[in-house]
């Protein structure tokens, strides 16, 4: 499938594992290959999963980045779910993964990921996006360039505008 990564549309073969109602994180069988497992599966099956050469993990919006403290370097990709585009918790999760836990690898937005939120997602540290499959990815990517300037610091830009540029004082003085 296609995703947006580093501002380009690319082929991607990671598979996101979502647990069915009958499945439990302790016992679910993890297929071989490039799998992004739920956080709870990682926490329950940590020892076995550590043996894999490549592994991804995803967090639900009501889970906390802090649960991956000391572990972030073990993943090739960390994904954060947007169960609904209006659920803003995942922005803070991304912020915490990047700023508090120092995660530098791929950070992917999954779930209800839509064009009009992409710009904010990019600012808080997401660098990969799986837009909702019923939308054209070629349209969604346009959302990354809605703005070329912003006031406040975040993950993508560590300095607020007032520390980056010389801004105008009152010219009438």
């Amino acid at each position, binding site marked *: 499938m296609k995703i947006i990564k580093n501002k380009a549309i690319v082929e991607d073969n990671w598979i996101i594992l979502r647990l069915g109602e009958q499945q439990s994180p302790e016992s679910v069988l993890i297929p071989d290959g490039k799998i992004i497992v739920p956080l709870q599966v990682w926490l329950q099956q940590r020892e076995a999963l550590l043996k894999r050469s490549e592994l991804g993990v995803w967090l639900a919006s009501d889970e*906390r980045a802090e649960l991956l403290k000391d572990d972030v370097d073990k993943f090739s990709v960390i994904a954060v779910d947007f169960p609904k585009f*209006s*659920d*803003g918790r995942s*922005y803070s999760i991304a912020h915490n993964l990047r*700023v508090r836990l120092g995660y530098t690898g791929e950070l992917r937005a999954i779930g209800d990921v*839509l064009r009009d939120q992409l710009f904010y997602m990019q600012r808080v540290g997401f660098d990969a996006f799986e837009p909702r499959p019923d939308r054209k990815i070629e349209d969604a990517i346009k959302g990354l360039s809605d703005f070329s300037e*912003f006031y406040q610091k975040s993950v993508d830009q560590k300095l*607020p505008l007032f520390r980056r540029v010389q*801004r105008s004082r009152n010219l009438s003085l």
Partner: protein
Amino acid sequence: MYRYDQYDYQIVRERVAQFSDQVRRRLSGELKEEEFMPLRLQNGLYMQIHGYMLRIAVPYGLISSEQVRMFAHIARQYDRGYGHFTTRQNIQFNWLKLQDVPSILADLASVEMHAIQTSGNCVRNITSDEFAGVAQDEVVDTRPYAEILRQWSTFHPEFAYLPRKFKIAISGAKEDRAAIYAHDIGLSVIKNAQGEIGFRVLVGGGLGRTPIIGVEINDFIPWQHILTYVESILRVYNQYGRRDNKYKARIKILVKALGIDEFKRQVEEDWEHLKDGSGTLTTEEVERVCSFFIDPAYETLPNDDSKLNEFKADSRSFSNWMLRNVLPHRQPGYAIVVLSMKKVGNVPGDATAEQMEVMAELADRYSFGELRITHKQNVVLADVRKKDLISLWQEATAHKLTEPNFGLLTDIISCPGAEFCTLANARSIPLAKMIAERFENIDFQHDIGDISLNISGCMNACGQHHIGNIGITGVEKKDHEEWYQVSIGGSEGNESSLGKIIGPSFSFNQVPEVIDRLLQVYLRNRIETERFIDTVRRIGLAPFKDYVYATELTEEEAVDDKYAVVPAQYDIPYYSPRF
């Protein structure tokens, strides 16, 4: 006042392009209403009963004559010739078409305005003291800090989809005129013993269904750290505020659930990681923003003007206006003038395009070209020479802008109510008009003195009824009849309190008689110059309640639609969008 530089312009221009494209995609059906709704709300665009309503941001209520003229243009070009000033110091237009909104935003951008974050579950327009910079009791001018917070909160990427809306108010005077206790975050700019500027931070205040007075989370955050401290409050709220029930989603519910001590611990734990980081404010930035808020070129003038006294003796209307609507200024020879948007018979907070142009003209000639919108829905000219007061009054009177009722009974705060709003249970504006007419007599009003009367069409409390000395709320409808609850004892400011409901609700036509009885109890019981609120606090609710319910209420003679702005159509429920 603050002027845009290239960066502000660029951000607002890019916003116009972004939103215009969103409107285009909505009109083409590419965006579903469910997806468009949060986008349009973040741009202040509501779908109301008659059409789209656009709320335009007036940051901390400060506005130039040029900008007010643009409002007049929008009112004429796209609306029905008038606009409505809101309790959050903004303006809204009620009769717009979706396809016109991109042009309106482009017009606004040309005069350094926008509608960014005037609604939606994000940080809303920062409100402040309408007398900032000119009040005699001011400790620190709030305007630079309000502007700094405006910029920080504009398109903040992490806090655009909060559990619920988020309102910040900031006050810097001894008397709080920004209702900071009724906001999600209330900031009081203060000086410590060493003369250093900092912020007393309140959190968790708010009205709505669960009115709560804000509590102090920190008694002194040095100015350098205010942005990071506010960021930490929002981060904790964004993660832990409830999202399962929109009536329990405001920060006040989280603060109540955790307790202020635990909430503070979580905030300050997060803040430890931000403090002294790159988000810390710099002296240079504060000085830069302060450069926009220096005093205008005041003349050296005597403080007294004998002509004023002569004219006052000649004109009761003028002397009443001087008594109520002209306030002391910290600069000798100058005064603060409140232009009333509450002329009896008019819609509270409404101004016609013509009135807007007149106010802009008056501002240019008499007040350095600036105006302020107040949270009580009036307009202020903050820097008027006393020797100009007579001519200003004469000109403004010709346009019905000098009702001498600032802070009096007919200075009613009212939400738009069920004639416009899909949330409201009952009409607000017609009730406000009916009450104003009943108590129009200005001598009676001056005798009653300071009092606030607030009307909300529903418990969401846009009319801030909880903090009105008298509060009226539209409650459930029965068979398309409107019923109103009445509360007394609410107030804002340093002694903020929430009103208490006096008893069972009343019909539309009974409410004026209820107000009359409340006032009778006050007049019988007041001691000397005691205000209505003081009497309520001293004697309690019971005497008022007893008298109001003692005998059957006479109803105002029902005259169909006499006060209606929009003719009532009871066969169509008020809450259903009609288009």
